[in-house]
């Protein structure tokens, strides 16, 4: 493997890891605050990707506007979803919520099939991000992937700022460490749940929209992302956003280079990594520390 190929693979690994982080951070927030194991989180990623496809003809070259519209739509969607399907479940056993999210996966998959169909669709990257820059003599690296990585980094910084520097973030951190105490202090925990859920859905959908031009959109794209994100969240330590960042980059590298070196057994690598981490540190790399 020459240097240029190696560099391209590294960039791919980082870009994939950062994208995973967007989805996983929403998952870990929802779990950390609400205690909900959200199996439907992959569906929100899928919904985001399909939004990118469906909204494309409406917005044309207004790519960033399209992303913004998609984020707003999905946040509203998440807000309503929490209100309709989860708000009455918190007093129940955790497993009831698992059942609910599993049912939602089935419903979302079928609605997607009814509304858009089962074909694989490509989504165009915007014109101003077409092409790539040269790396070495033969390789070039597409600008759109650079844009995806940068967008993810900006969002990660934004998330860090919200969680650590704002009043809302303070409530989120407090809720994650002691839910009952927060309620006792007079904070409307229902509303906090709803906001966090909406935010998590919006993050996953945004990741889906950013990924759409890279992976194209296809049925079942949600469930593969979901399982990988669970791996990320568990390796990083549940409820920890910085842990999720470290873990998603780790998973990005293991997955990308696993495919290069051990093509046949590459599927196993990520799970092996998780097993090793958990045997070594049963509560993940960073147990709840933002």
């Amino acid at each position, binding site marked *: 493997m020459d240097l240029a190929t190696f560099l391209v693979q590294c960039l791919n690994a980082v870009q994939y890891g950062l994208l995973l982080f967007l989805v996983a951070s929403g998952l870990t927030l929802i779990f950390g605050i609400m205690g909900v194991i959200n199996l439907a989180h992959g569906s929100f990623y899928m919904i985001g990707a399909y939004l990118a496809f469906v909204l494309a003809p409406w917005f044309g070259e207004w790519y960033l506007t399209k992303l913004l519209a998609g984020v707003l739509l999905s946040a509203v969607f998440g807000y309503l979803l929490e209100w309709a399907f989860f708000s009455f479940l918190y007093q129940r056993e955790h497993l009831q919520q698992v059942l609910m999210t599993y049912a939602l996966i089935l419903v979302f998959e079928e609605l997607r099939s009814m509304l858009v169909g089962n074909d694989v669709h490509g989504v165009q990257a915007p014109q101003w991000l077409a092409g790539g820059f040269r790396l070495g003599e033969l390789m070039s690296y597409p600008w759109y992937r650079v844009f995806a990585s940068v967008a993810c980094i900006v969002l990660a910084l934004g998330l860090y700022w919200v969680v650590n520097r704002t009043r809302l973030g303070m409530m989120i951190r407090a809720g994650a460490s002691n839910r009952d105490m927060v309620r006792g202090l007079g904070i409307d925990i229902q509303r906090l749940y709803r906001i966090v859920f909406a935010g998590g859905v919006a993050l996953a959908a945004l990741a889906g929209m950013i990924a759409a031009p890279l992976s194209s959109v296809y049925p079942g794209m949600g469930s593969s992302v979901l399982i990988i994100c669970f791996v990320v969240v*568990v390796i990083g330590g549940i409820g920890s956003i910085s842990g999720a960042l470290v873990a998603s980059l780790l998973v990005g590298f293991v997955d990308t280079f696993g495919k290069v070196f051990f093509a046949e057994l590459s599927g196993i690598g990520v799970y092996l990594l998780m097993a090793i981490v958990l045997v070594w540190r049963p509560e*993940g790399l960073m147990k709840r520390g933002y």
Partner: protein
Amino acid sequence: MATERGWILPVAIALVLAALPLVLTPYTQDLVVRTAIFAIFALSLELLVGTTGLVSLGHAAFLGIGAYVTVLGTGDRGAQSVLWLLPAAVGGAALYALFVGALSLRTKGVYFIMVTLAFAQMAYFVFHDTKVGGGSDGIFLYTRPVIALGGTTLLDLDDKRHLYYTVLVLLIGTAGLLALIGRSRFGHALAGIRVNEQRMRAAGFSTYGYKLAAFVIAGALAGLAGFLLAVKDGAVNPELLSWHESGAVLLMIILGGIGSLRGAVLGAVAFTLLKEFYQSEALLGGLASRWQLTLGLTIIAFVALLPHGLIGLRARLQRRRNA
């Protein structure tokens, strides 16, 4: 459920099931066999989730390994004896359960859920990506196992009726075994671990050993279900080990009501029949292709209306009658 006459209903159901093949069409008999196999599978998970309080999201790995051992053990060497193939399938699943359990029981709660999932995915990718079991297409079981003594065949699982009664007997055996475990000292220790593991350890129980034993027994029983499923379908593919299957079996016992053997069986029956009903074009016409939507909405309705699963329905009706 521990009423004095608690045995009457299960025995009556067993008798009805034993008489059913006389009146069933091949299609419905196949459906009953499939439901019974999933009931065994659900019962095996109930020992972990309901009795011990360990939620596993990777239980399908053991089902799949049992099924793959059955098919790979047969190969193209003609009909094998049930007497070695069945123990091999169960043993293979138990062995993997020992490995997975030994490592994953170091973790707790949500971490345990995810580690079991990870080990199941590893097994899934081994069968999906390598040539061990025919890759993503899976392989066929060309000849079904038999029990032969001397020259006479006592049991031929190629015969639908033989298979039916074998599955029925094994379902009753599994339920009986788990009921016995529930009443034994071992079962009480598991229940104690579910309620308060710290206290059990303080009382001098090596809880890790107990949990590992429960994990291996559950894996072995799932392997039994895998053996039967491979024999019934005459083929295996990696999807048997996928997390969808693990999720579905967890769904069955939650749907039925966690904490009772009847709940697990009820959940398996309800889930299998609901799925069959919603997929049936003869009954629902064009809606049958949209079965995920109808099944999903039904489950949502169940969650909203039945907080304690189907098994809680009776208590609820009784309460209403008394009120």
